[in-house]
């Protein structure tokens, strides 16, 4: 079993497993942090951004205009680019299946599917597909809102001349521009939706099955198993109770290898405290007459934020403050969340039986409290827009989308605040191209993924035979609370690694046909064990092995092949009981047997038949003339006197 690591980001994983001639890709996460090296793309031309000084390394005029400096840092003035999964390790046309664990780990899917010759099936749950698609659509929409004719390329060749952190960028020549709408549609077409506990067959050789991981709507851990081997892939799991269905552990136990990814990115922040802090910061800012910008993804934590914030503001007598949710997919996201009851936590599911909508945001929208808008130009937005207000908008990196507009609009006023809740991006780097900044900024990251201590407990519960994790989790980092511990061997990987996993196949399941099964009657050989000689014709179809009754060869037209393949019905073992043999021979009118001592046993001499039977502890040799009738008679008599199965 081989493992190929195509991504080095533990929370945006992409790896490939090769086993039993199947090639299975585990997630296709997109590393978006590369975006932070780029300048924001404003919806309306920004004089501030346009007037930033350009930065040119000495004597490299072709880079002129590609780089600009803001508050001592250098940025690329171009539409942002992404770092897709490594393409050199594996031929994507060989990928049979892609297992997606949640919508945050599928944004690179259009890149993979667009690879030459890709013909695999993508397995994802229905919410993962819907929400993943919403996220991709949003990315694309934002990017298309701010088209640029020129893409900066020259800087990539002069990496060594650039200041930090640009000079440390990982292989920027591999970075790609975002995919097209067609690529998204192609990727979505490849997806086969599955439910928790649904076993999918991969060429008869393996079965893959998702089970709830508790992280977000439709998030899943995957079990990849044959009859004998089980690999468990855990990415982005949560043991907290928020809105998604709870983590299910039963299926994950006792794996040969547990692949563990996607632990918390902010181990020192408690999500419960952070959501309280978030509400408090919002209320504080609003009371000071300021506006609040919450950069966020269009699904996920934003549901919990809205659900907690609305009643909190009511308590603080701030119920008149409007909550705007600006995203091209805002309406879809809110609507979908309310129709996915099967994928929700128990408490939310119970509401559906009443029947009430599982999330309160339907009510909040109906009551005019929460207002979803496609974008800032959408009908009614300018009329409804009043300050102070809270705006939930994308993209959380502050590099494109409506957040850029609000940062430019509100950044100069110290009463306003931007509150970061996404753990995916370092907030100071997000803010860097907006410096100097008068507005307040807070960081209340909410990451419901497993803590290291929770992960360690999970590993103890699941008892895998080996653990495979990104190198970051096992290296002795600064703090002990950020380290994984396991009783079993721990394997680690970095981007580009190819590992051989400690799984060796020894057996295959063989189905004996009803007809063959009927003919077998195992004989007891020792206590509690029975055995029978079996000969059958092997059929292999769809990697399933079936044994059927072998056709009996026609004796006349025997071919060499049939003759060499023919096997007797029995295996004989143990020693011959000589007196019994002699007694049985008399039944066949052979009365003149003379027993002599031989070198290792006895020799039975049949004088009349001119035949010798040499009997040892573990072998018998019948030496006779050409009379087949006699030989067969002797053979069968001998078989009677031997143990056999």
């Amino acid at each position, binding site marked *: 079993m081989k493992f190929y690591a195509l991504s080095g980001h533990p929370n945006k994983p992409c790896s490939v497993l090769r086993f039993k001639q199947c090639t299975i890709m585990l997630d296709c996460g997109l590393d978006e942090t590369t975006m932070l090296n780029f300048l924001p793309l404003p919806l309306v031309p920004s004089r501030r951004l346009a007037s930033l000084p350009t930065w040119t390394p000495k004597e490299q005029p072709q880079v002129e205009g590609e780089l600009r400096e803001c508050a001592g840092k250098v940025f690329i003035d171009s539409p942002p680019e992404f770092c897709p999964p490594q393409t050199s390790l594996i031929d994507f046309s060989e990928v049979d299946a892609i297992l997606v664990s949640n919508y945050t780990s599928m944004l690179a899917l259009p890149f993979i599917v667009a690879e030459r010759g890709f013909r695999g099936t993508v397995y994802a749950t229905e919410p993962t597909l819907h929400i993943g698609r919403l996220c991709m659509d949003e990315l694309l929409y934002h990017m298309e809102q701010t088209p640029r004719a020129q893409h900066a390329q020259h800087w990539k060749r002069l990496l060594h001349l650039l200041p930090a952190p640009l000079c440390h960028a990982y292989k920027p020549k591999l970075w790609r521009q975002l995919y097209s709408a067609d690529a998204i549609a192609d990727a979505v077409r490849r997806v086969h939706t599955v*439910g*928790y506990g*649904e076993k999918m067959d991969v060429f008869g050789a393996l079965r893959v*099955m998702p089970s709830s991981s508790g992280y977000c709507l439709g998030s899943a851990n995957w079990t990849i198993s044959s009859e004998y081997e089980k690999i468990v892939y855990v990415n982005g799991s949560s043991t907290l109770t928020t809105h998604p269905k709870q983590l299910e552990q039963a299926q994950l136990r006792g794996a040969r290898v547990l692949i563990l990814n996607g632990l918390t990115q902010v181990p020192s922040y408690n999500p419960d405290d952070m959501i309280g802090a978030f509400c408090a910061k919002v209320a504080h800012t609003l009371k000071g007459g300021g506006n609040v910008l919450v950069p966020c993804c269009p699904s996920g934590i934003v549901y919990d934020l809205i659900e907690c914030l609305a009643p909190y503001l009511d308590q603080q007598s701030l119920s008149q403050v409007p909550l705007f949710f600006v995203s091209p997919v805002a309406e*879809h996201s809110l*609507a979908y969340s*309310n*129709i996915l*009851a*099967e994928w929700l936590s128990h408490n939310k599911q119970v509401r*559906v*039986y009443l029947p009430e909508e*599982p999330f309160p945001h339907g009510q909040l929208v109906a009551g005019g409290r929460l207002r979803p808008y496609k974008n800032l130009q959408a009908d009614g937005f300018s009329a409804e827009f009043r300050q102070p207000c809270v705006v939930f908008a994308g993209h959380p990196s502050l590099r494109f989308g409506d957040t850029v507009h609000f940062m430019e609009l509100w950044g100069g006023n110290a009463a306003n605040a931007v509150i970061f809740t996404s753990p995916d991006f370092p907030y100071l780097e997000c803010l860097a191209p907006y410096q100097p900044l008068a507005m307040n900024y807070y960081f209340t990251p909410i990451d419901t993924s497993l803590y290291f201590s929770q992960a360690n407990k999970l590993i103890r519960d699941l008892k895998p035979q080996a653990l495979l994790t990104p190198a970051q989790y096992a290296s002795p980092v600064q703090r002990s609370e950020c380290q994984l511990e396991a009783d079993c061997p721990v394997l680690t990987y970095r981007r580009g690694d190819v590992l051989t996993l400690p799984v060796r196949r*020894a*057996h*295959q*399941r063989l*189905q*004996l046909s*009803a007809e*063959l*099964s009927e003919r*077998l009657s195992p004989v007891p050989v*020792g206590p*509690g*064990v*029975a*055995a*029978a*000689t*079996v*000969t059958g*014709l*092997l*059929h*292999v179809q769809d990697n399933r*092995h079936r*044994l059927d009754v*072998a056709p009996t060869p026609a004796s006349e037209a025997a*071919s*060499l*092949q049939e*003759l*060499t*393949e023919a096997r*007797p019905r029995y*295996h*004989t*073992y*143990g*020693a011959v009981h000589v007196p019994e043999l002699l007694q049985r021979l008399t039944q066949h009118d052979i009365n003149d047997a003379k027993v002599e001592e031989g070198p290792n046993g006895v020799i039975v001499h049949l004088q009349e038949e001119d035949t010798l039977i040499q009997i040892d502890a*573990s*072998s*018998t*040799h019948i030496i*006779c003339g*050409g009379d087949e009738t006699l*030989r067969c008679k002797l*053979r069968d008599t001998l078989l009677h006197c031997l*143990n056999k199965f």
Partner: protein
Amino acid sequence: MPEIKVTPLGAGQDVGRSCILVSIGGKNIMLDCGMHMGHNDERRFPDFSYIADGSLTEHLDCVIISHFHLDHCGALPFMTEMVGYSGPIYMTYPTKAIAPILLEDMRKVAVERKGESSTSFFTSQMVKECMKKVTAVNLHQTVQVDSEIEIKAYYAGHVLGAAMFHVRVGDQSVVYTGDYNMTPDRHLGAAWIDKCCPDLLITESTYATTIRDSKRCRERDILKKVHECVERGGKVLIPVFALGRAQELCILLESYWERTNLKVPVYFSLGLTEKANNYYKMFITWTNQKIKKTFVERNMFEFKHIKPFDKSYMENPGPMVVFASPGMLHAGLSLNIFKRWAPDEKNMLIMPGYCVVGTVGHKVLNGAKKVEFENPRTVVDVRMAVEYMSFSAHADAKGIMQLIQYCQPKNVMLVHGDAEKMVFLKSKIQQELSLDCFNPANGETCTIVTKPTIAADVSLSLLKRDLQPVAEIGDLRVKRRKLLHGVLMVKGNKVRVLDSDAACAELGVTRHEIRFTSTVTLEDPGPVSRTIDKLHTHLQKRLGITQHLGDGPINIGSVLLQVSGSDQEDLKEAIVSWTYQDDALGSYILNSIKNIDR
């Protein structure tokens, strides 16, 4: 021989009160737990005493409910709360959401309107307690009921959340279809199942003899009739169940009213409607693709033209169309409206679904011109036009055959249909698909014998050895068939196939080798080497061996052939030696050289 035993407690050669007991692999499973709408006495519930005298929980391993129609789940609270059952119950998410509403509604009708004593019927609290015992399942989810029973739900299309269930115990399995529909309609998709090859398929057969005409024709038909009736000032009553067909008909009428700009009011009996539509909204993933795709922009279950109905409207003059529940005219609002409107020949009754024997709906459909009622004792003349529209979403004969072909069962059993119609379908299945087909009556037990197969673990080394496509014998390359030869070992419940040596080693026994050496005297003057050549040429002809061996012995597989004697003697001795494992080949060669001169 292992067997599967099936006993219908209801729905055996009958429609209504679906309840089928299956004994499979030592497990007892109940499929559906319905009530009969045509009876008001103890016949309405299945006879649970048949299952066990003592506790049902001890005897039954699980209960599976296919969908929320009362003839499939109506007896569930009675069984769990009054008879007593606390084992696992499975149904899909929408069924779990909607079934309690219908149960409660039916309970109210029975207890409050018909004045049944509340002691013989379950209470609201019992419905709630019963639903707490239910585990909701998703489509295609493999649910492990216990260490042996595995169930999996497939989409059945019939109503929101309707499912077919595949039940597997060991290597035996049964598929129960519940009610299903093989053609997609305005709000639901078509039933689908994979090729799961169960030992038995238990299918409904409501429309066993019907081949329904195209969906479009039926739709045009009903719309034309409704339109004609309201144009001449008549009132149209459409009895429906609040959930299911009602939604499809509403979507149909809504779009027709929109298109033709009709102003005649359309009402839907209040109460369940709004709630029902809410369920459809929240379980939209269970409807069809088109509704799913457009639901954000336009919710198909919000109607512009269809208004809530108030009892007082019954007396309003002028034309109107009313959807009222229940669908079989056996109680409640639809029956009240019927009594009021039936005597007027301008009016029309459209029955869009199947009616079980004993209901007013069934009587009227069979042409009854007078219907008698008790307390108060009245007789209602039926002058209104009565139309039957085969609109209920059941598979027709073609659909049933199609499903059988999808899932490839080894046996078929028909339930939920009329006895005579079953006979027709049964012979069709036997003739066209050559499958054994059963249609037991209620209380009659069918035994289906299944052939056991053995699943064994085979070592990869043995497989690789025996799967090698080419084996070499001497210099000769023989294409080998995939013949596997080994030892089956049974230890506890572990079954393995090993190669002989490994098996003997593990069993701790020493093999006893048997060798044969037979000597034949041949008359063949000349050098020994010539005799060997002669024998070789002979065997070459018979067996197709190609290699020339020179002076040495001839090796064919493990069979050794030598010639002894001297070049000067006429008589030579051919000695053939082989092991018991190669008995067939050795014996063949021996016989072959004995007959060399013939």
